């Protein structure tokens, strides 16, 4: 089993965190998120992202508004809610702790 395969479930679990990060940076629509993730190890597909976004909206982490686009019908632009920002902050802190643990564990 390659490292890539071993980390499949971890990547899946982290996806929500990454999506929060992407949305926190700027108002984006789904294709933007996919595009930004596609250049990372967390590249994903519409089939996964849309259900995830809908779950996050249900949990009131994100919100969206319709905006006209130059080409085609209006798009849903996502942004973080207060709860989403709070969640992102907590997750970031927790991730720092994990990183610190990884760095420090086993060190003399």
């Amino acid at each position, binding site marked *: 089993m390659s490292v890539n395969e071993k980390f499949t479930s971890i990547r899946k679990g982290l996806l929500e965190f990454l999506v929060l990060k992407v949305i926190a940076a700027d108002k984006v629509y789904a294709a933007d998120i996919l595009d930004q993730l596609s250049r990372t190890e967390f590249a994903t597909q*519409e089939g*996964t992202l*849309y*259900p995830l976004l809908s779950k996050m909206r249900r949990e009131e982490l994100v919100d969206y*508004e*319709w905006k006209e686009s130059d080409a085609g*019908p209006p798009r849903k632009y996502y942004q973080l809610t207060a709860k989403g920002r709070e969640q992102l902050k907590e997750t970031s802190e927790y991730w720092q702790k994990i990183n610190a643990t990884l760095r420090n564990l086993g060190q003399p």
Partner: protein
Amino acid sequence: MNKVISINLNGNAYQLEEGGFEALRAYLDTAARRLESNPDKAEIMADIEEAIAAKFRSLLGPNKTVIVAKEVADIIAEMGPVEDAAGAAEIPHPGAGAPAGAGRDAEGAAPVPPARHLFKIHEGAKIGGVCTGLAAYFNIDVTLVRIAFAFLIFAWGSGLLLYVLMWFILPSASTPAEMAAAHGMASATAQEFIRRARQGYYEGTRTFGDKRAYREWKRRFKSEMRGWKQQVKWGVPPWTPNPPPAGAWIALPVLNTLISAVSIIGFIALVSLVATGDVFGLGFFVWWPFWARILTLVGLIGLVRCPLKAIRRSYYGYPWGHWGPSGSLWCVLKWVFVVYLVVWIFGIHTGLHDAVQHLPPKLHHAASSVEQWWNQQ
């Protein structure tokens, strides 16, 4: 050359090759099933359809109006399987069959083709809709069918006979369900697409903030839906019944009684002709061969019934061309032509008369010679 099917994704029409349509349908059906328990199912489906539509749009241009099956397959692969974020994706839906097959009800699984039926199709017909019906049934170009019939007419007129017989026998595809069956498609699928489109529309409008943008979008959506309805030849009724005109309450029962009376008398006459070789002892063209007499009688019954039925149809308010007021005229002309043809063949041209009288044995001869040729191969 492949058949093209128009579909609606979130209120826009796209043309797909038949194979691509089937694959997309299977993909969306699987997605819908996996999201069955998700409270946001409708919204996610609308998002997914919009994403597919956006990918279609990027492929289309002024010189490319149809998405081929390969492109649909690529897009489906790009989209990836729809997984419920709540974690329900791994649970097979009830009735998926053996546990081992749980992961296999995947995208692109061949759906069961719905049953095809042979109908006359008046849309795009030249004469009676027989050729268009056959073309839809066998999924081939209608021109080929017409050429085949033209050739058969030269083969001792058998094409003509065959055509006229099918004209009498085949039912017309008039309802959306019949139209779908004529093309071998499930109309339920079409209904499902419409339902989704509408749902997508309402989902969209509900969350719209800007009033002007909302109005503009609504206007565009509506005009696109209208255009699309004209295009789609299955699932959506190409007509909407008008309110019945005044006097329908008295005219309809009278018409129905008249039509029934004509049908019953016609049927008894036909039974009498088959049983005794004559209609009620009136000496009905007794000097003609038996089959020509039957043909003429059926033609005469049609001649009487057609205008009555056309009037009744106009009372039911079907505004489409073939069955409009001109439809009844066309219908009468059709039957006049059939009767005239029979009279002409047996009344005037003695040479042709002999030839047609010997038609059934000749047909038999032709069939056996084809059989011989086949056996030699």
